């Protein structure tokens, strides 16, 4: 039998239905792969008993002909998702020993469709980071290495564990979340496909909140089809999340393989940054060529407020985070560090429980909301956000169907390489992705080639609100021409 972990999610699904192997066999293959790959630090918790129980139940349903759309397919879950009775800490010390009595809507949707949980995936603490180096559980190692080098690279963040696990074949697909690029940037760094759907497409209920107006769940998968299959199951309208949208979930898989002929693709000139590496520029051009050759129409567009998205983001996201993270006070769950009185207990707990990046963002957020500064920072940033969104609306109103940009300004970098840098330098990783969150739009990252050092590079497609289907169609066209990318196993 070939290595079961080499199959895509769609292939495994079909094989399970054809009874080529069982869900338990498939799950065991993944549990073995996870054990062998612990050096990557992609999982913070493995749940083999749960996985095998779920797989057994899947086999029973498969045998009875009652298989769900994801029946028996082993997945990894980002630690940001509440999983009932299972470690859920957003990879923060402050949530030590927290085991929710509830299951997030998105993961519950996956289990309802028959999927199998392998464990919880590493991430940047509270999803704050672009390299997965802020996790309380240590950095994740990217399965990719530079040609001829054994320097350990970051997988990107915050969904670094998700991206590394998918790239390293430690799960068939993974849940992730994206507040400023946390699905698309790690996908680009690991040669995987990640989609951040439209804000409101997936329920946020049971997702540990970072920045409520920006957070959105989505999958990281091996290819475009797998991403489409996963998103179909993850998305739903949820009465418990009033920002989730009451629209039917389309059959995204049907969009994969459709012709792109006649689709108008906007190329925003503002994404051509000063000092952008030549190979990123070349990749972008390659993507343009691929889509043009596939029959799409390429048009130049302008999104004039692009450069303000990142600074506005670094006001809005920390502001919301400073408030969302106030609940971690040592009273009802998680870490408590004693103090001389209640305030001292709060201060000790939060000083010990939060890492440096989280503290930095809480302080920025607290500062920009504080009396006298609100208008100058928060209110202004939300106005700029209106302008950013308007840029996109005008482009779509002019007939553009989707927008093509690079996904990241560089390939993956070394762990610790930016440790001493200015925090802003790290933030620039999200310069191409963050606009999409600010405007609430869907965005997909698709691998499109390798850097000179042999590292994957990704392109981003940005769609109209709730038009994820066009992104899957276009992403599949790029994938068809550029191929898929896998790291050589070295771990």
């Amino acid at each position, binding site marked *: 039998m070939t290595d079961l972990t080499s199959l895509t999610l769609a292939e495994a699904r079909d094989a399970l239905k054809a009874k080529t192997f069982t869900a338990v066999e498939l799950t065991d293959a993944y549990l073995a792969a996870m054990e062998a790959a612990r050096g990557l630090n992609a999982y913070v918790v493995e749940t083999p008993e749960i996985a095998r129980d779920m797989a057994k139940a899947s086999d029973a349903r498969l045998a009875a002909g009652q298989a769900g759309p994801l029946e028996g397919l082993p997945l990894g879950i980002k630690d940001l998702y509440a999983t009932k009775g299972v470690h859920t800490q957003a990879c923060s010390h402050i949530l030590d020993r927290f085991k929710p009595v509830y299951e997030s809507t998105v993961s519950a949707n996956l289990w309802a469709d028959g999927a199998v949980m392998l464990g919880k995936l590493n991430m940047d603490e509270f999803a704050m980071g672009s390299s997965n180096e802020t996790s309380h559980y240590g950095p994740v190692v990217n399965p990719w290495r530079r040609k001829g080098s054994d320097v350990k690279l970051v997988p990107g963040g915050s969904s670094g564990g998700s991206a590394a696990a998918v790239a390293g074949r430690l799960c068939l697909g993974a849940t992730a979340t994206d507040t400023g690029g946390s699905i698309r940037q790690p996908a680009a760094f690991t040669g995987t496909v990640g989609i951040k759907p439209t804000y*409101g497409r997936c329920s946020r209920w049971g997702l540990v909140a970072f920045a409520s107006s920006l957070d959105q769940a989505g999958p990281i998968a091996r290819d475009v089809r797998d991403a489409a299959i996963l998103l179909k199951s993850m998305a739903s309208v949820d009465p418990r999340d009033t920002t989730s949208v009451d629209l039917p979930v389309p059959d995204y898989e049907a969009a994969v393989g459709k012709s792109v002929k006649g689709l108008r693709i906007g190329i925003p000139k503002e994404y051509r940054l000063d000092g952008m590496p030549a190979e990123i520029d070349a990749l972008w051009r390659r993507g343009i060529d691929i889509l043009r050759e596939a029959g799409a129409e390429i048009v130049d567009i302008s999104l004039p407020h692009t450069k303000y998205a990142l600074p506005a983001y670094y006001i809005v996201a920390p502001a919301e985070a400073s408030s969302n993270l106030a609940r971690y006070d040592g009273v009802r769950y998680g870490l408590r560090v004693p103090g001389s009185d209640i305030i001292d207990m709060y201060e000790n707990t939060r000083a010990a429980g939060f890492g440096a990046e989280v503290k930095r963002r809480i302080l920025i957020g607290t500062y920009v909301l504080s009396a006298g500064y609100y208008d100058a920072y928060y209110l202004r940033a939300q106005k700029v956000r209106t302008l950013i969104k308007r840029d996109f609306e005008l482009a779509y109103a002019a007939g553009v169907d989707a927008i093509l940009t690079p996904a990241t300004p560089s390939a993956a970098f070394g762990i610790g390489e930016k440790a001493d840098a200015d925090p802003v330098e790290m933030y620039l990783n999200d310069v191409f992705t963050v606009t999409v969150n600010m405007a609430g739009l869907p965005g997909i990252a698709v691998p499109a080639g390798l850097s000179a050092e042999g590292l994957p590079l990704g392109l981003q497609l940005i769609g109209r609100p709730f038009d994820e289907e066009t992104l899957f169609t276009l992403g599949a066209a790029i994938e068809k021409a550029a191929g898929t990318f896998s790291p050589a196993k070295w771990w």
Partner: protein
Amino acid sequence: MAPRRDRCYTREHSSLFEGIYMSVDTATVRRVARLARIKVTDDEAERMTNELNSILGFVEQLNEVDVAGVEPMTSVVSVKMRRRQDVVTDGEDAAAVVANAPVSEDNFFLVPKVVE
């Protein structure tokens, strides 16, 4: 906290932009950390002051944007807020509420004594 005039100055060459430029000192960082209930050491306060100023310097470019007459974003999706019916559907499980509590007794959460 009121705007500290000594540390803020308006951009003089343009009346178009009402934004103000600000940087923080360690005393401000300490005050903000206190508001956020995070204890900081002297070293941390020092380091965070630099980091916060770097971030504040970065976001200063927003002052270039003319936002006159622009409505601040309230929601990225244009939907009406759904409402629940006035029906009791939840609660009645105190054990679940305190299940993860660091300290609890008789289904109460316990905290260091609060004096008013």
